[in-house]
């Protein structure tokens, strides 16, 4: 909003105040995210800048907290770093294990949420869908209901949701369940919990993409002789794909950042990065957390870039200009 030429002096003063307020709010938003990056290179075990760091002295900076991510939980941390050392880090280091768990859980939760969510969104976007409003409200509710309520309900129920480990079902599903054959303390339990939490995001992004979808394209495909399967894969799927992918990224981001459900339903095996951070912040807070935080910030920059590019591509494909 440029200042109009007829603005009075008072309006000019107000205009610059307004700009200053905006700048301050932007700083409030972005500074805390960026501040963790330099702090993570701290040589000292402090959560603040040392004098050497402020003087931009290279001696004040170090990679020791990044190193901690590999050595914490490493049985032979001080040994020379040969192949065996790196292999051991991959197998044993606490943070590496947590990262693998997070990726594993996030991947399956995303696959589950995106597949079910996209199919459901296709149904919800049809004009003849019955009870649309009610069903939407139910499917979006995992985002609205406080996470603590979800976690408490799941921790009660998943402890009871068991199959006998020696039964036929138990044999097949046993590896995904806990040793007692329950959803609680198991990877499957965490995966379905995270899938439920990711579903609202998939539903919202995919239905938003479909809302701009020109239904006459489907009729055109039919009239040109395409059967429903060909119509879906050749006409519908390419157009909604950007929406589906950003929904999937949202679902993955949700799972990758989720800690409360994990705290309540996961066992010690399912240690994820957020859980490790949560415990780290509660107990002894070390700058190693800031190193993880920096990696996660870079990770979110990458996610954001992909989502933003997809959104633009989707808008272009659907012929939407501007926002």
């Amino acid at each position, binding site marked *: 909003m440029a200042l109009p030429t007829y603005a009075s002096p008072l309006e000019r003063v107000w205009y610059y105040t307004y700009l200053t307020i905006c700048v301050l709010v932007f700083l409030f938003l972005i500074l*805390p995210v960026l501040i963790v990056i330099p702090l993570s290179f701290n040589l000292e075990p402090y959560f603040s800048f040392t004098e050497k760091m402020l003087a931009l002295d290279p001696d004040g900076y170090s990679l020791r907290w990044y190193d901690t991510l590999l050595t914490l939980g490493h049985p032979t941390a001080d040994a020379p770093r040969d192949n065996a050392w790196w292999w051991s880090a991959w197998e044993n280091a606490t943070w590496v294990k947590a990262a693998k768990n997070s990726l594993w859980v996030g991947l399956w939760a995303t696959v589950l949420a995106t597949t079910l969510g996209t*199919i459901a969104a296709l149904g919800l976007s049809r004009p*003849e869908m019955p009870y649309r409003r009610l069903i939407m409200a139910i499917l979006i509710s995992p985002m609205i209901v406080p996470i*603590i309520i979800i976690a408490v309900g799941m921790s009660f129920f998943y402890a009871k949701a068991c199959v006998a480990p020696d039964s036929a079902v138990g044999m097949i599903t046993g590896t995904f369940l806990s040793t007692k054959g329950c959803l609680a303390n198991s990877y499957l339990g965490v995966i379905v919990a995270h899938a439920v939490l990711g579903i609202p995001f998939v539903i919202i992004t995919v*239905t938003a993409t479909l809302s701009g979808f020109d239904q006459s394209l489907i009729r055109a495909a039919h009239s040109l002789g395409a059967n429903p399967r060909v119509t879906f894969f050749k006409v519908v799927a390419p157009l909604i794909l950007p929406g589906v992918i950003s929904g999937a990224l949202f679902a993955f*981001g949700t799972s990758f950042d989720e*800690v409360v459900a994990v705290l309540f339903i996961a066992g010690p095996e399912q240690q994820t990065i957020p859980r490790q951070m*949560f415990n780290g912040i509660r107990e002894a807070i070390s700058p190693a957390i800031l190193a993880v935080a920096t990696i996660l910030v870079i990770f979110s920059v990458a996610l954001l870039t992909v989502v933003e590019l997809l959104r633009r591509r989707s808008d272009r494909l659907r012929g939407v200009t501007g926002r």
Partner: protein
Amino acid sequence: MAEDATTLLKTADGRPLKAALATAQARSRRRAFLLVLPLLAFVLLTFLIPIGYMLKRSFEHDGFSANAPALVQWFAENPGFDPANPPEAAFAALVQDLAKMQADKTTGMVGTRINYTVPGTISLFKSGARAAKDLAPPYKEALLAEDAKWGQPALWRGMYDASSTYTGDFYQVAVDRKLTDDGWARGGDKERIYVYLFVKTFLVSALITVICLLLAFPVSHLLATLPMAKSSLLMILVLLPFWTSLLVRTTAWIALLQEQGVVNNMLVALGLVSDGNRLSMMYNMTGTIVAMTHVLLPFMILPLYSVMRVIPPSYARAARSLGATSWTTFRRVYLPQTLPGIAAGSLLVFILAVGYYITPALVGGADGQLISNLVSFHMTKSNWSLAAALAALLLVAILVLYWVYDRLVGIDRLKFG
């Protein structure tokens, strides 16, 4: 007339058009529903049933009713007994049950159930059960000699309530009512911790919503009025925090605001604060409010922005050209048009704030805790029924807000980025 016309029309195979249309519509409705069905079943199994199960736990507890059969039967036969002076038969049944509890090792479960409504009774049941097999009639004097607490009217009321599996007791406790010798009564002012925390949670959430609105309004306006290229760039500053892990942002605020943190060090270096009087902005309510405002601000900016973006600037120009001052233009022309965005953003932020858990748990310290943290506290203390009742009350509040949101804004209008 119109109806007659359609009933007369026939399709090629001779069926009435109206019937054929109804069949076709029913089929397409069924098809649409079948697409949604797998997800609905999944959400039902993994989300709705667990929450329903939690609600069931909030008014069901068989810790006493399943393990004290004699007393349960006596209560059923004598519902009008005087809790202040139960007869010998009641004590006889109690001693019989205590002996059975000791044999079955169920004292803990019984004590836990009674402890919800009459605190401090777990040990009473444990010692009573140990002594039960050596007691001789008359049981009333024998048990009272063992511990005079067995004569408390509140205890007898509590046991009577607990003799049925389904009970509203946990809700009474969750709204700070106490089981006294004369029945349920409002707790003293110092004991009203749960209601106090509910009120506090709502007030803090309202405060955070207002702060978010005040911060988001100018920024959204700037983003909405700048040319697309510039506003897209600035939008990154809003979306990056939105995409950044919650734990990262909470960690960042700890680094910034703690006593040896960046802000305090800066203030000391600038001489604004002396080294001995560092501000405590972390591990208290201030920390909770600042960090939560930061986390929830994008949820206010995004809906506000999407509403402001489509407000035509010509309305404001028209108002100015008709002689309105800039303040009047803002108040009478611009602000009313942003109300849908204000409603959407405020409700969303408020709903999310009321149920917030992680940030208060990490940066709230002792006085920055909200109702979610209390639910978590009772879960870790194994007071599951009370945790479930508190969670159920919170759920009702959230569902009411959600319903309002759907009425006012519509859930299908939710969007990100």
